[in-house]
């Protein structure tokens, strides 16, 4: 996508904080991304990776050291020309981690606030009423319109925050870990609702989270961040299947790490595993890693445990091992299998019946192994 048709365009964004010696310094270096209108975009990473800083720079809560931030044809920030639109004139909707519901106002007053202080135009009383009703209706909270903001549950506060963020129909919606303060069940529910709501109003959305499951389920595109840099920007499927480096593979989803020495082999590669005589085949070919120590990532759900007498299917790696742990977790069985000194995690269907001590074959496809620099 070229920058001109992008809705939100962030280029070479940098912001560093003077290191105070307390915790990770945060900050972001040279972040680049351009989003088409209506995209649900997620910044994913561990704490201190710079995802929140990036979001706050877009919002205008932080002033970047350099870079350009543009929404449509409007330049919010451009260090080289000295442009910095004050945050209150950016017309962005934002949901804060704490929801930031003003306790001295009712639900209605909270949601009406952005309309009352709007600088670009005046909203009449009737229009404010109508718009607030509309926003509250969207988040299914119309019934609580005149309730005091202090008498709301966590989930309700979150909806009020959302209604307040969308009431002015902004072109951009920023969500700063909005689900992290909810309990597990509500979080799952709100994931669905938030995604549906975003699709319904079609607003370009930047979502910040450290929860990879959230990111994978909700996003159109994900940027995985590590130490202030975007290390991979791709669709959830690509991120999961073709992580660009070992960090991404480890952070997004759980995985097994096998170490060994790589060599080229036809169109793919073969890795001789370090602690065993076995080798595994991989359809990926990374020429620069040939002859070097590498790490191989194999996702637990790509592993199939088979009977020792079964035949090896095509394009499949096989290691021999013994089940050392079998746990029933409702929707699936979780196994730990030892192969020589390797410990591998594998999932099986809830009906699978391997027991601790069983000898098994550990099978995974040649397309399921990803190779990274050690």
């Amino acid at each position, binding site marked *: 996508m070229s920058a001109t048709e992008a809705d939100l365009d962030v280029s070479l964004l940098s912001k560093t904080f003077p290191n105070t010696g307390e915790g990770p310094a945060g900050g972001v270096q040279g972040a680049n991304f351009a989003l088409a209108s209506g995209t649900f975009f997620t910044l994913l990473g561990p704490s201190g990776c710079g995802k929140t800083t990036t979001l706050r720079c877009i919002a205008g809560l932080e002033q970047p050291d350099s870079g350009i931030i543009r929404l449509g044809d409007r330049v919010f920030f451009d260090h080289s*020309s000295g442009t*910095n639109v004050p945050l*209150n004139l950016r017309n962005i909707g*934002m949901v804060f981690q704490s929801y930031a519901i003003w306790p001295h106002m009712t639900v209605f007053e909270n949601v009406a606030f952005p309309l009352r*202080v709007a*600088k670009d135009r005046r909203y009449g009383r009737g229009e404010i009423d109508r718009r607030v009703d509309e926003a509250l209706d969207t988040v299914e909270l119309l019934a609580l319109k005149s309730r005091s903001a202090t008498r709301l549950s966590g989930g309700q506060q979150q909806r009020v925050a959302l209604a307040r963020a969308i009431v002015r129909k902004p072109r951009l919606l920023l969500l700063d870990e909005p689900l992290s303060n909810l309990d597990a069940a509500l979080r799952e529910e709100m994931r669905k609702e938030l995604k549906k709501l975003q699709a319904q109003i079609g607003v370009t959305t930047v979502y910040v989270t450290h929860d990879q499951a959230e990111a994978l389920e909700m996003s159109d595109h994900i940027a995985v961040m590590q130490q202030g840099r975007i290390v991979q920007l791709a669709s959830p499927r690509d991120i999961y299947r073709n992580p660009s480096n070992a960090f991404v593979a480890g952070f997004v989803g759980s995985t097994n790490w096998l170490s060994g020495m790589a060599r080229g082999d036809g169109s793919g590669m073969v890795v001789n595993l370090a602690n065993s005589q076995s080798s595994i085949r991989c359809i990926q070919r990374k020429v620069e890693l040939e002859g070097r120590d590498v790490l191989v990532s194999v996702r637990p759900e790509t592993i199939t445990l088979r009977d020792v007498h079964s035949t090896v299917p095509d394009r499949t790696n096989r290691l021999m091992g013994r089940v050392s742990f079998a746990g029933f977790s409702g929707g699936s069985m979780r196994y730990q299998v030892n192969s020589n000194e390797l410990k591998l995690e594998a999932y099986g269907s809830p009906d699978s019946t391997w027991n601790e001590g069983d000898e098994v074959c550990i099978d995974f496809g040649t397309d399921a192994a990803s190779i990274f620099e050690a």
Partner: protein
Amino acid sequence: MTGNSEISLSKVARVNGAARLSGSVLRYSRLVDYPLIALSAAIIVIIGLLVLPPIWTLIRTSFANTMPDLSTAGFTLDHYINLVTGRNLAVSAVNSIVFATCATILSLIIGGILAWLVERTDAPLKGLAYVTTIVSLGTPYILYVTAWLYLLGRAGPFNDLYRTWIDPTSTPFNVNSLTGMILIEGFLWSPLVFLLLSSTFRAANADMEEAARMSGASILDTIRLISMKLARPALFALALFVFIRNIEAFEVPALVGMPGRVDVLTTELYKSIKEVPPRVGYASAFSVVMLIIVGALLFLYGKMSKQAERYASITGKGFRPRPFALGRGRWIAGLVILVNFAIVLALPISAILWTSLMPFVRPMRWMALGTTTIKHYEAVVSSPYYLGLALNTLMVSAGTATVVMLLALVAGWLAARRKPGAAIVDQLITMPLVFPGLVLGIALLEIGLRFPIPIYGTLWLIGLAFVIRYMPYGMRYAYSGVLQIHSELEQAASVSGANIRESLRLIVGPLLIPALTSGWLFIFLIAAKEMSLPLLLAGPSSQTISVAMFDLWANGQGGEVAALGLMWVTFMTIVATTFYRIARRLSLSSFGH
């Protein structure tokens, strides 16, 4: 060269033009937040103009020759030489240190024990402890001091009982002594120590004590090894704070010490400015020395309280301090609270009541009841003079509290949110803490005399002095109030489109109302009972209640002091309670908790 610069200029112009075409880009060509900087600068200028001139005036006068008409000319070190060579400074300094140290220890013992009992145990009568504290904080010092002067004095019940039962010819206790001063000052400060320490104990995390109990520690071990250790930095910081206040104290030294010729730094200073002609240069030099001493102590205090903060263990969510069960010790604890009530409130108030009802100062005896009279009350009520004084006091106190809290709202917000200039604002607004009341009074006296607008002898000058003196207190309320407001509440307002003014007016202001009202009430109450500033600054038409009581006392009209004081305390208690109730209801209706 000119050609070159022309070219680059036109380039810039073209770039600008292009940018403007592509959508009003340069309308906000600023990386600097001007409204915020303007606000910050304005506050710095206002506070600077309040705080710096008094210091400058004192320093200048202390180095200048003073003419008989109080104008100054030339440079001299004479005042400092007089100060150092005179005997008075050394004697009064030693007295000051002994007085302040002992009084501090006394008030810490009383207030500390009480605070721990009330906050961390299941002692009965907790309500009484609070009532005692609140009422006594609203009582003018002078009234308290006169009550204690009577109680411990020649005609008071203690000496009287001794004479009746043991030796009719002697008076064992001379109240006009260093011991008397220490006792009275210690009693005076114990309520405030109680209040400050109870917030420390309340903030202490009960988990830490319970963890000790679960590890097998007895209650006493827990107190000794955990509670006290955790509270120690806060205790030391508080002790230093009270010590500083005792060094600066004026009421007790003036009313108790001066008649017995026990001089401390503040009374020495007071005498030098009240001499005719006043020794302005000497007093200024004296004041500068006091400023340096207090400044150094405050610096130390700042370091200590920073250390105390690291021990603060408030954990936020679901935090409920759980009290110790004292078992049978409950009743001993109740007794302690009762004794405190007697010493801090019941005894002084009954002494005042007694003196206000007696035609002249006499011992508490049944037979004296026959001479009961209400002539003092009649004198107070029938005189329009006192009504004027009450109005003056209320006006200047309410005005001060309002101005201070408005300044503190903006300054506290700037400082707590680390906006540009935050450090300067914070430094400037806390600077008046180095002024003992009397020293600030002398500085403003000099400013008032030289000020182009005739404010000398008016309420305006007293108000100005009050604002300077109480700004740091207002700042504390506003600052901690702002810290309690989650910063995302403000950021949400900005993202919603609000500018600084709207954020402050619609979000920060309303959310700060509880902090601002308690700050307002606190300043209103202490301003209403402040004596040292109005004593120096009041003109004939700008007297306040405290000054009038001081004058009455000096004239030997103890009965009228008592009657006036008692009525004033009752009135102020009603005002404060009503205000508190209304404020509470307001915040209840808007915050729902």
